[in-house]
C-alpha cells in the first residue's frame, strides 16, 4: 500500500488514531467506513490516486480490508495500462 493510498483512506477512518499505522488486514468498517461514505472514498481515490474502480469492483468484499481495496486499486491500474497499449 503506497502513501497516497493510505493518506486517501485515513480521513474516512474515524477510528484510526492519527499515530496508528494502517495495516493491510485492518477491516475498514471496524475503523469507521460505512456504506454512505464508500462513494466519497471512491471519488477521493480517483482524485488523489488517479484510479477509477469499475462498477463490478465496488463490492462489499473489496471494501472489507485495506489490503483488499489496495488490490482492487492495483488491478484497476494495471487494467487501464493494458487498455492504453
Amino acid at each position, binding site marked *: 500500500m503506497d502513501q497516497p493510498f493510505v493518506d486517501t483512506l485515513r480521513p474516512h477512518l*474515524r*477510528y484510526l488514531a492519527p499515530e496508528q499505522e494502517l495495516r493491510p488486514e485492518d477491516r475498514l*468498517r*471496524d*475503523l*469507521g467506513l*460505512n*456504506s*454512505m461514505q*464508500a*462513494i466519497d472514498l*471512491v471519488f477521493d481515490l480517483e482524485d488523489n490516486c488517479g484510479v477509477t474502480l469499475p*462498477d463490478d469492483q*465496488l*463490492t*462489499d*468484499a473489496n471494501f472489507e480490508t485495506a489490503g483488499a481495496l489496495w488490490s482492487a486499486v492495483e488491478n484497476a491500474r494495471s487494467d487501464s495500462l493494458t487498455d492504453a497499449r
Partner: protein
Amino acid sequence: MKALDPALAARLAPVLATVGQHAAESDEKASFPVEGLTAMRNSGLLGLLVPARYGGLDGTVHDLLAVSQLIARQDMSAAMVFAMHGQQVAALVHHASEELRERVLPGVARGDLYLGSVTTEAGKGGHLLSSETGTRREGDLIELDRMAPIVTGGAHADAYLMTVLAPGAGSDGQVSLVYAERDQLDVQVLGGWDPMGMRGTHSVPMRFTGAVPHDQVVGAHGDFRRVTVDVFAPLAHLGWSACWLGTAAGALSRTLRMLRSPDERRRRDLKSELLLTRLSRARQRVDTVQAMLSHAADVYTSLSERERGGAPWQLLVNALKVTASEQCPAAVEELIELVGLRHGYLRNQPLTLERALRDLRSASLNYGNDRLHLANGSLSLLDQETTLV
C-alpha cells in the same frame, strides 16, 4: 401470488380464522394478538422456515411472503409479528453455529419459541449497523445491559435476537447479533404502546440485563453486517412489503365484494366512470407492488451471498420497500374516496378501511423512507452502468 401449497393452506386456515376474529379487539385495545400467536404456534407455522432435519416445515422465502400476505388481509399487526419472527428464524438457520441451531430450532418448529427482534436503540433511529450498547466478556459469558425503545411483540416473545457491540469493540460498527432466551436475562417492559395504527404489534420499550453464553452469537462477533446484508435487511423489506400488500389487497377485495352485493348494485351505478377509474387505480397500485415483490423475491433467492452485497440488488430491495409503503396506503385512500364517509371513514365498519389506512400509515416510517432514499442515491452513484437485476 402463486397459490399456497395445500398442506400449508390447511395449516394456515385456523390461524386466519383466529386472527380475523380478534383483529378488531386487538386494534381497539392496542393489545398483542395473543390468540393469533397461539394459533400460529399450534399450526406449526412458526417453524415454516426451519429445515426438516430440525423438525420444521422446510418452507421457502416465497412461502413466508405468501403466508404473511394472507394473514395481513385479516390483520396487518398479526402479519408483521409473523413476518418478523420469520426474519429471525432465517438469521438463525443461515448464520447460527450448528450447535446453536440444534439447541434452538427444534423448539421453534414445535411452536415453543416465538422470536422477538431487538435492533432499535435510542438516538440511532433504527439504523441497523451500529450500536452503542457495550458488552463485556466474563469467562464464557457476555454481560449486557440493553435498552430498546421499540420491540415488536417484545412482551410476548420467548427469546430474542438482539444487536449489541461485540465484546471489546473499538468502533460503533462492530456489532454482534446475540440470541437470548427470556429466562436467561432480566427482561423489563418499560412503557406502553398507543400508536395510530399497527396497534396489535404491541411494540414496547424494553430493557434486557444479564449475561448469555458467549457462543450464543449468530454469525461472527462484530460481523452483524454480514447477517444484515444476507438475511436481515432483505427479509425485513420483503416481509413488510408482503404485509402491506396483503392489507391493501384485502381492503380492495372487501370493497369489491360490497360493490357487487345485490343491495349495493341497486344503490350505485357500477358503470360510473369515476368509480371504475378509482377501482382501476387501486388495482394498479396493488398489482404494481405484487409485481415488484414477486420479482424481488425471485431475485433474492437466486443470488449468492456475495451478490446480495452488491449495489444492484440493494437498490432493488430498498426500492421495493419504498414503493410498497407508498402504493399500498395510496390504494386504500383511493378506496375510501370511492366508498365515502360511512363505509370508508367510520370505525368498525365491515370494510375496515379506516383501520387499514391507519395501519398502512406506518409503512413509510418503519425504517424511514427518507433514509432509504439517501442510501439508494449513494448506491446509484456506485452503479454507473445502471445494472438492473
